[in-house]
């Protein structure tokens, strides 16, 4: 089977960096060196020869790089296949290890599916889950977390940067609530955070943190769960996990399986590069985002989703009134690679549950676009995005007969 092809001339402008990022050329080179090396192919767990030691040292170097980027200790980094596995390890690991102490978990409705789906499965297995509802800006009040904690709560799982709307939760305050309550570990999905905003794992008082390689210009297929070695956690000791995968005892027995040296080397370098990105890059992205929003707002009937102040500049989520979701995506697809707020490709369309949780109606949730800006994004890309949407949104409103009223909800029912 052949993959769809895309010529350089027809390639759409890539504005989906929140979905994944291109691998940094320096990262790709480092990975290729490992793959092509005659001395670095060893099993990192092999301690009986130099081949294993060389691979092992590369893995440990990457561990230090990742740890340094998030303010953790190298011994706290557990390699996984990605943030999804890290989230699963955190949720199932805590739930099963502490199942005799309590079977209650607190999370939010706007979490990634990689948190919500394990929570649903735990519910099916008898755990109780409290799903917090954020305000209309997507923000949680730390007091909501405090109010949800019970004597049998073993885990709070709240993401740092939301993957759809870019909102940044006040993790420090939530961690303080968990510590004060004294019964629950805190897991943070930080897949969208690295390179976009500062992270201080130790300083925040977080117990578990999920990380992803490919969101940070690293390779797909590798991630990490940072597991705190603090011994003064809320249960009076360090957090413990029941492993998901058995068979070899790698990664302190938390994640068995031969480590993928080249993937890990790539993630390590990607995190080091992300941590070294200067503040001028963040300022540049913020300027591009402001320019994009100003351009889209001038179309009229464009509603920004999520807090404009408590968010990373790399994400902008906008709903367009009076436009049907699938048509909007189809109209922009030849020109822009963006994500839609809807899985609207069939009669079984499912509007974004994140936007629905923020109180957006079904139609506005479907007619949203997520713009993910990144290192490759240029002023010309932003100009293209504004031009395409300034042409297509009014065109679709004209076809829909909504051009004058704009707001779908304001129109009389046909």
């Amino acid at each position, binding site marked *: 089977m052949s993959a769809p092809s895309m010529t350089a001339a027809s390639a759409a402008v890539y504005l989906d960096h929140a979905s994944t990022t291109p691998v940094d050329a320096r990262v790709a080179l480092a990975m290729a060196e490992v793959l092509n090396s005659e001395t670095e192919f060893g099993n990192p767990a092999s301690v009986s020869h130099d081949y294993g030691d060389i691979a092992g040292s590369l893995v440990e170097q990457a561990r230090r790089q990742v740890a340094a980027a998030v303010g953790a200790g190298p011994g706290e980094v557990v390699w996984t296949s990605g943030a999804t596995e890290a989230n699963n390890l955190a949720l199932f690991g805590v739930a099963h290890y502490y199942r005799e102490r309590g079977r209650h978990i607190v999370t939010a409705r706007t979490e990634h599916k990689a948190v919500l789906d394990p929570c649903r499965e735990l519910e099916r297995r008898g755990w109780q889950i409290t799903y917090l509802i954020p305000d209309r800006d997507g923000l949680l009040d730390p007091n909501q977390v405090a109010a949800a904690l019970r004597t049998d709560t073993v885990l709070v799982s709240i993401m740092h940067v939301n993957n759809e709307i870019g909102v940044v939760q006040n993790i420090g305050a939530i961690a303080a609530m968990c510590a004060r309550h004294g019964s629950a570990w805190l897991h943070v999905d930080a897949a969208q955070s690295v390179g976009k905003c500062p992270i201080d794992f130790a300083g925040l008082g977080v117990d578990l943190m999920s990380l992803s390689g490919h969101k940070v210009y690293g390779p797909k297929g590798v991630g990490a769960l940072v597991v705190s070695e603090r011994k003064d956690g809320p249960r009076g000791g360090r957090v413990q996990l029941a492993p998901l995968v058995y068979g070899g005892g790698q990664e302190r027995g938390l994640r068995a399986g031969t480590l993928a040296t080249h993937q890990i080397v790539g993630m390590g370098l990607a995190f080091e590069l992300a941590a070294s990105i200067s503040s001028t890059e963040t300022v540049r992205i913020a300027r591009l985002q402001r320019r994009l929003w100003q351009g889209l707002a001038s179309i009229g009937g464009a509603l920004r989703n999520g807090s404009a102040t408590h968010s990373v500049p790399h994400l902008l989520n906008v709903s367009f009134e009076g436009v049907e979701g699938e048509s909007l995506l189809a109209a922009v697809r030849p020109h822009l690679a963006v994500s839609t707020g809807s899985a609207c490709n069939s009669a079984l369309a499912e509007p974004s549950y994140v936007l629905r949780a923020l109180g957006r109606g079904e*139609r506005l949730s479907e007619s949203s676009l997520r713009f993910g800006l990144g290192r490759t994004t240029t002023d010309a890309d932003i100009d293209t995005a504004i031009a395409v949407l300034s042409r297509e949104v009014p065109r679709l409103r004209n076809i*829909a007969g909504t051009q004058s009223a704009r707001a779908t909800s304001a129109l009389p029912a046909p």
Partner: protein
Amino acid sequence: MNYNEVTRRYFESPANVGELSGPGVFRGAAGKREEGTWVQFDLQCVSGTLQAARFLAFACPHTIAVSAWLAEQSVGKTVTRTLPESVQELRDRFDVPVDKMGRLLIIEDAWLAAAVPAIDYRG
């Protein structure tokens, strides 16, 4: 979702978008914008022959393309109690996924709501 060539063409450049008014104009609509699909046809008929047609659609690309095609292809033809082309033929022409068949029925309802009263109109 991928669309075939005719769907993309009529979605990207639909003719006959809009509304008609005046004598001999019959309007039919079906669906609801609030539910994601709404289609309206304005058909202008004289002695059972379609003189002009316009459409509006708050809908997916398939629905817009089919509505545009109907409004374009039917002018000059006799108005009947059926769609100018059957739902199954439209489905094949536009490669409409089976889970969108309901949207073709909305188009049919909107078309017939305008067409049936027009059949006997003699101006």
